[in-house]
């Protein structure tokens, strides 16, 4: 082969490779999932599985980027212009705010997917130090003098709102619906909180890495993950008798997805969470699956307890938010009286 032929072949090869790469990159689809703090590991696995499935089905490569932070803060970022194709947040209220203020999705977004758009659930449990030195078994034990409770600030953390409402709901049940006693109970609960972190991950850091407190109140999935990865053999999970059914919702940010031309793939991404594969991934990351078959398969991993929903006890997120967490609401009043 002479020099000219070699050069021609080389040029053709380069051109072909360039064309192929251009074709491939043109088909790449990028999605942004704006989520809350403790879902990092869950969505890493979900994203990989969905990308595989989508490519097998359509031949298109999909790259899903993740953004994590406090649920309320993430919602504000979307309102302020962060181009999220989907949001997977801690509270339905945070997505309601996006729908209301930025009008990026319909107000009835929660009806667009099964189970109130919450493909998996969790609950609020306790994480204690090895041997449970303060003998914490249920909510009442958190009120004892000398027990130091770690929970984030409900004003800044979605997870903390679930903790607060779980405690309130327990007290209401125990007192047969006496609001005054529930209020007193939660006031005492926060008297035992020496540090109010801004988010769930911060509270976990305070409890596990800084060694502060006797008990961490938080997401069941976060507590299980902490035991597994951060403190094997150093911590124990305590499941209270009663807790709240936490339903972290997901939603398609319709206007953004339509603008970016990602509506179909983003919708498929959310629907994937309801499939047996998606449900198993959720269960492996310690979220309680909705699908019966997955729930049975992982039943041993999730302790049984009496769960109540936010609708049953508080009349929904909007009402709970307004009553308890709005400026001047019950939480602010309790904090003032605790000073």
């Amino acid at each position, binding site marked *: 082969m002479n020099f000219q032929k070699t050069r021609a072949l080389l040029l053709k090869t380069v051109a072909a490779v360039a064309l192929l790469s251009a074709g491939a990159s043109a088909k790449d689809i990028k999605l942004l999932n704006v989520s809350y703090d403790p879902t990092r590991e869950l969505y890493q696995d979900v994203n990989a599985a969905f990308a595989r499935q989508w490519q097998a089905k359509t031949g298109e490569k999909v790259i899903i980027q993740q953004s994590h932070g406090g649920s309320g803060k993430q919602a504000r970022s979307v309102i302020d212009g962060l181009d999220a194709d989907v949001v997977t947040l801690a509270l339905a209220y945070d997505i309601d705010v996006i729908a209301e203020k930025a009008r990026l999705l319909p107000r009835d977004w929660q009806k667009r997917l099964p189970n109130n758009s919450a493909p998996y659930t969790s609950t609020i449990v306790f994480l204690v130090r090895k041997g449970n030195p303060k003998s914490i078994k249920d909510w009442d034990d958190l009120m004892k003098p000398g027990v*130091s409770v770690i929970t984030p600030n409900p004003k800044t953390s979605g997870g903390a709102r679930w903790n607060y409402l779980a405690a309130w709901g327990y007290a209401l049940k125990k007192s047969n619906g006496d609001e005054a006693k529930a209020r007193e109970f939660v006031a005492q609960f926060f008297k035992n909180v*020496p*540090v*109010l*972190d*801004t988010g769930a991950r*911060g509270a976990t850091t*305070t409890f596990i890495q*800084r*060694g*502060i*407190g006797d008990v961490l109140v938080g997401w069941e999935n976060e507590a299980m993950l902490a035991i597994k990865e951060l403190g094997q053999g150093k911590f124990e999970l305590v499941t209270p008798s009663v807790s709240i059914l936490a339903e972290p919702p997901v939603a398609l940010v319709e206007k953004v997805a339509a603008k970016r031309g990602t509506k179909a793939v983003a919708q498929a991404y959310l629907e994937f969470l309801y499939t047996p594969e998606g449900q198993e991934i959720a269960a492996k990351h310690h979220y309680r699956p909705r699908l019966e078959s997955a729930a049975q398969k992982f039943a041993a991993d999730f302790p049984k307890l009496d769960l109540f929903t936010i609708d049953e006890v508080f009349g929904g997120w909007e009402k709970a938010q307004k009553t308890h967490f709005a400026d001047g609401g019950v939480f602010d009043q309790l904090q003032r009286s605790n000073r």
Partner: protein
Amino acid sequence: MKKQSLRTLIVILGVQLGAHPALADDQAELIKQLLKRVEELERTVEALQGNRDTGTKTNYAIAQQWMQELDQKVKVLERNRELDQEEKEAKAKEALKISVDERGFAVGSPDGSNLIKLRGLLQVDSRYFINDATGNANDSFILRRARPIFEGTVFRDFDFQFVPEFGGSTVQILEANLNYRYSPEAQLRIGKFKSPVGLEQLQSDPQAMFIERGLPTDLTPNRDLGVQLWGEVGEGVFNYAAGIFNGVGDNRNASNLDADDDKEFAGQIFVHPFKKADSFFQGLGLGVAGSYGSQRGVNSLPASTGGILPGFTTDGQQQFFAYNPTSNAVVVADGLHWRFSPQGYFYRGSFGVLGEYVISSQKVHRTVTAPLTTGQIDNKAWQVAVSYVLTGEDASYKGVTPRRPLGSGGCGALELTGRYAELDVDDDAFPLFSDPATSAASAHSFTVGLNWWLNKNIRATASFSRATFKGGGGAGTTPPTIVTRQPENVVQTRVQISF
């Protein structure tokens, strides 16, 4: 060992809290109490250690519990302090950025995407004419420039500027423009701003070397209305500007609308060939600029500063040439107007030199009184200006920054300046378009001056200019004849504040 660590931790914590006055007040007492308890515990532990052998394990366990409680309290304090710090940092990130400094007053969004600045320029001058004729310009104090400057940025890439002028005899909008910064290399400006032709004209007013610009500026456009693509390539090695404008007469500012359908193209290319090299010529800048268009009407002729009819002025802002033909004829612009200007400067250390040549060619028409004729008048001017900073600071196109400002242990910066300039009016202008008995055919001017840069914001200047004329000086008591009857000798002073 553990006791010592705990005590050290408390002491360190106390020191850190002390560094934060807001926390120190609230928590100093708590730290004191903690230290007192540590001392008590130390005594207890020592006693218990002595008793351990005797089997008093209960007391030892109590002491251990105390230690654990204390350890928790210290950790809680430390964590709360961390959270306070995080909250402060988060708030600082979200807070508006407000600054008041030598560059003016600025309020910006935390991410810098939006910014509003208030700046200003005030120049108070005095002029004293030596041995001038009766009826000549008055010796006076002058409010030469008085400008609030509003500027800023919106949506990160869009800059705006609004500059009203309250100095002089009329209030006007001097600059009002929007600039889209796609990149340093490609920017688009629309509105009212300086047309990119005259080198000295383009120099910012507070940074100009002399109280008044030289004779070549009489032949260049001032602010004009239009749209311009411009940019800096290679970090300023290559600079360009090209735009389409309404078109203005020489040394005129545009009004807010156009008087005719004709437009003018203007542009400049300016290079700093050695800017990135470690060379003797690093401060060398060379360029060419020009304009091409069509202008009509009396307002498209040069400015009428210092007189009634359009013409050219001296350093003392007196008119030495006017389009003032005899027999009550009136001259108007009547078509093609082009300018061409090679230009350059060189700055090295305290020394600087700036030079430019301008030719401005305007087709004019004589009306009202016969002969009703036209002519293409080519006027030319050039100048060389030098400066030397006596106090050792660097000279530059953007002024001088005193190394030791007055009031900060220094006396500011002193800059000595000198300039020679000429303006030559086309012979074809006489006598049909200008009266040779009253208007000068050329002016020659030299100026010496001293700039005292007290600091970055305040400058005091004194200068002496002498202009001599060829032609003119005939009968009459109004400019330009009264001006050209003798050389102009003017002492000028200026006090300027700009920020």
